[in-house]
């Protein structure tokens, strides 16, 4: 009897410990599983942006909506001749910050999903951007920049 009670207690403790850790999202993870490399996840409250394999063998930025479990179009964002390097998204999944390589240049850009509008953010003084992050309210951007062989982090307030 004592041994059985002890066993139950151990099982309860183990169950409690499991509840404290990482719980895989069983409903969403199968939708992310595909051949090819995925990278640069950025979470919003409503979904996730990340860099995923594109049908042409290149890579593209994608959006997964958590409520529907489906992807959503990002009109005007991806180009077949551009290589996305890093992406960050705001809390509502409306404003994206991204770094991409295009025609030998590495660019920092902002994408407004509801306007399907993509615009460059100039770096002053000039530098090569790498990783980017966006605040949840979409008003502040932080970017890792290479200048004269040194990595710096620069923060930019956005209108």
């Amino acid at each position: 009897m004592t041994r059985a009670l002890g066993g139950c207690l151990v099982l309860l403790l183990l169950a409690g410990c499991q509840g404290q850790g990482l719980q895989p999202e069983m409903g969403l993870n199968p939708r992310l599983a595909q051949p090819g490399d995925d990278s640069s996840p950025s979470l919003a409250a409503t979904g996730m942006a990340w860099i995923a394999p594109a049908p042409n063998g290149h890579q593209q930025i994608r959006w997964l909506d958590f409520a529907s479990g489906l992807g959503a179009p990002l009109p005007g964002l991806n180009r077949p001749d551009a290589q996305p390097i890093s992406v960050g998204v705001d809390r509502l999944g409306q404003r994206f910050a991204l770094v991409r390589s295009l025609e030998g240049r590495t660019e920092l850009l902002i994408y407004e999903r509801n306007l399907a509008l993509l615009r460059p953010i100039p770096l002053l003084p000039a530098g090569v951007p790498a990783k980017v992050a966006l605040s949840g309210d979409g008003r502040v951007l932080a970017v890792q920049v290479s200048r004269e062989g040194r990595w710096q982090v620069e923060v930019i307030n956005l209108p």
Partner: protein
Amino acid sequence: MVWLLPLLFLLTACGQRFDAPGIGDQQEPALSGNGRLLAMVAERSGRRVVRLVERNSGQELPLKGLQWGMPHRSPSLSWNGRYLALILQRGERGEIVVLDRALGLLRPLPLPGDRLPQALSMSPDGKRLAVQLLHRGQQDVELFQLPAHEADLAPGTPLP
């Protein structure tokens, strides 16, 4: 009016940097929900460690409870900065940890299976984690819930 927006960006995109004595390269930035807090990995005395800076004052905030003996990677913040997720590098293996700044508690979050974390993103409420991981030579992105966390919500956000 839409054509005016790029011009506005050009006029207002002025950068702010947070260099400090003894700090080398700074990489992998992350912001809190309203951009008040900036986390990044900085090289300090030859080690890669997370810095947390309050942007308005430029003041570096203490990270009580964090382990400083191992290199840090890929920080990510919840909305108010209560939770700081990062990867602690133990030799070849990375370990995901979350620092609860409100409690000063560091919680290790082992990945199930033989998978190595490469990069993290925490949801604004701190209750979900997206992990870029290396598994059998392929980079995947997977999602995890963190049910033990209280939600770290933006002011005015309705409770779930």
